[in-house]
């Protein structure tokens, strides 16, 4: 018995303290390769792999090609646009368009103003939305679902529908007629004016306050909308953050409450630190959508004394105006270059933050119920 067993056992070739090398009959290499590569399983795998790669590369190409063509066009000299042999690679390489935009369109001023506006708005929105979302996600109170419904409503009504009334609201900004009242305009009650003539402010202020305060051409409309969670797509942020907070286990807060921490203190000390990836995601959305926004900025910032923003950078610099056959293409290239210079800061930011974007979304555990 023992001897037989020993015969069947693989022969030990070399033995050290940690390793044993034994001799056994291995299937020949040819057989192994055959089994691995000539099976149906492998063939389908390769086909799926190639199909997937082609598809992904193709869609990536669709996403990236506009940028390639814009970059190529931005480096071309005016002659290249009428040269039939020039397509994607410029013949007369020049940086004139960039230089003209940089110097003539006050790029730096626009950049600084937009940076200030976007950073302020995005920070406020991220913070306020997480505040609201936390309240909706973790507290049961009467009217919770009604408030949430209002959030969704504010997301659903297209801002174009409210264009006119948004404009008049902030052009003649007044809350409950307070400004009208203090400057002696009385209070409108169902069409009749009562309490007229009570002045709390000197008459010299009337041109500012009689019809409400004019907030257009300032940053205030953006700040007010951000503080109240009503700015562009804030409903979406609240929705996303609410789903995220719902996934945070209640025990975390409960243990904090038992230790004597207040509700708001708990929010700042426990909840905010663990939701950083999600907040970065929301910040990234808010920042870049504010950065490239043209609806609100064109609505509120149209006057001559309005701060210069990125939307004002899309123009043909006067030194580049040129009458020649390729004019249309050339101007199109200039506009594209303006676009490239507008999004350049965003792309840089995106490269740094995209890791968090995916992480934040993945951890949100978005569910529809």
């Amino acid at each position, binding site marked *: 018995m023992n001897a037989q067993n020993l015969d069947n056992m693989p022969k030990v070739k070399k033995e050290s303290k940690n390793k044993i090398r034994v001799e056994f009959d291995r299937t020949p290499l040819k057989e192994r390769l055959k089994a691995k590569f000539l099976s149906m399983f492998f063939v389908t795998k390769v086909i799926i792999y190639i199909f997937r790669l082609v598809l992904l590369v193709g869609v990536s190409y*669709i996403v990236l090609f506009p940028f390639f063509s814009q970059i190529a066009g931005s480096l071309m000299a005016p002659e290249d646009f009428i040269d039939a042999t020039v397509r994607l690679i410029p013949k007369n390489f020049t940086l004139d368009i960039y230089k003209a935009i940089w110097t003539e369109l006050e790029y730096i001023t626009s950049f600084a103003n937009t940076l200030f506006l976007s950073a302020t708005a995005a920070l406020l929105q991220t913070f306020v939305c997480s505040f609201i979302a936390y309240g909706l996600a973790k507290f049961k109170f009467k009217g919770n679902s009604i408030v949430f419904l209002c959030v969704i409503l504010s997301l659903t009504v297209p801002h174009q529908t409210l264009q006119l009334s948004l404009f008049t609201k902030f052009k003649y900004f007044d809350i409950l007629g307070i400004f009208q009242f203090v400057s002696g305009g009385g209070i409108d009650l169902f069409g009749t004016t009562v309490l007229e003539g009570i002045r709390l402010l000197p008459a010299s202020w009337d041109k500012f306050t009689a019809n409400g305060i004019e907030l257009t051409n300032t940053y205030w409309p953006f700040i007010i909308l951000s503080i109240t969670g009503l700015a562009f797509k804030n409903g979406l942020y609240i929705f996303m953050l609410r789903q995220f907070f719902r996934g945070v286990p209640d025990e975390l807060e409960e243990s904090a409450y038992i230790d004597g921490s207040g509700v708001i203190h708990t929010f700042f000390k426990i909840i905010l630190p663990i939701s950083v990836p999600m907040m970065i995601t929301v910040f990234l959305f808010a920042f*870049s959508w504010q950065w490239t926004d043209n609806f609100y900025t064109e609505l509120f910032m149209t006057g001559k004394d309005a701060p210069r923003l990125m939307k004002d950078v899309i123009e043909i610099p006067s030194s580049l105006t040129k009458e020649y056959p390729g004019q249309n293409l050339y101007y199109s290239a200039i506009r594209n270059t303006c676009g490239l210079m507008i999004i350049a800061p965003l792309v840089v930011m995106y490269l740094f933050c*995209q890791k968090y974007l995916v992480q934040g979304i993945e951890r949100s555990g978005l569910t529809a119920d």
Partner: protein
Amino acid sequence: MTKDVKLNAPKRRKIASLEKKKARAGWIFVLPFVIGFALIYLPIIFDSIKFTFYEMTNVPNYKGGGYILTPVGLENYYDALFVDPDFVQTLVAGLEKLIFDVPMILIFSLFMAVMLNQKMAGRAAFRAIFFIPVIISTGLMADISEQNMLMQTMDSAEGISDGTGSSAASEIVTAMDFQKLFANMAVGEELLNYVVSAINNIYDIVNRSGVQLLIFLAGLQSISPAIYESVKVDGATGWETFWKITFPMISPMILVNAVYTTIDSFTANSNIVMTFIDNVYNKQGRVLSSAMSWIYFLLVLAIIAVIAAVFSAFVFYQRKD
């Protein structure tokens, strides 16, 4: 003992007060929104509806500024629906496009999400590229790329196209190619045209499905791997796994995305109805444009209600507790 517990009234009240306290805290958290909604948003909506029943004239600044409203009843709505020659046509075309676009974007983004969810080399890079449109192709950039003549010219020479061009030369496939291919298959001409137009609008579809892709991806990540494992042990194929596991589990996301896509595509600047309304706002009159957009909004709201009703009948919710 039980009597003791029942008599222990103060303790019970204490619990109730804690709940009340929590409810109050909840109100504190949502207060910014409630205040803003009541004082700013509701008046804006109210104004916007009110304006549609009035004629609006601006008072010049030297006369004190402001505006005067004269009531005209339903005249603005009458003008929009019966006097304006193009509005109804644009509206019908816009709604038709909406109904075509939404399924396309949903299918595309679900497909891509499933693909990007698989483990493979370069997944992070592909994801980063796919999310670029979310960040960049909005507002100003959308405006610029709409007028991008240069790209079309660059394409047409090589015959490679991304589908943005409208000229015949830059179309990847034409209906003819497909008709040849499917000549013997009774798929119907409408379906054929649908697929062809989808392929030729691929650029548009990719650009508009970024957020949906993110939402689907998040949904796929939240499906427990244990389910897949047990199905695999039972011998299900990939196809079966998708339809029996992934699809039901992701169905709440499909509802969310269907509603979101509808909202997103009818508020987008590139939407033909919105462009038309914008033109009216700039040229004919602001009030008329408000009336038009309310008509449009009500129609789309009805569509969203129908979509939500239909989809929620098929949605599967996994109850965790």
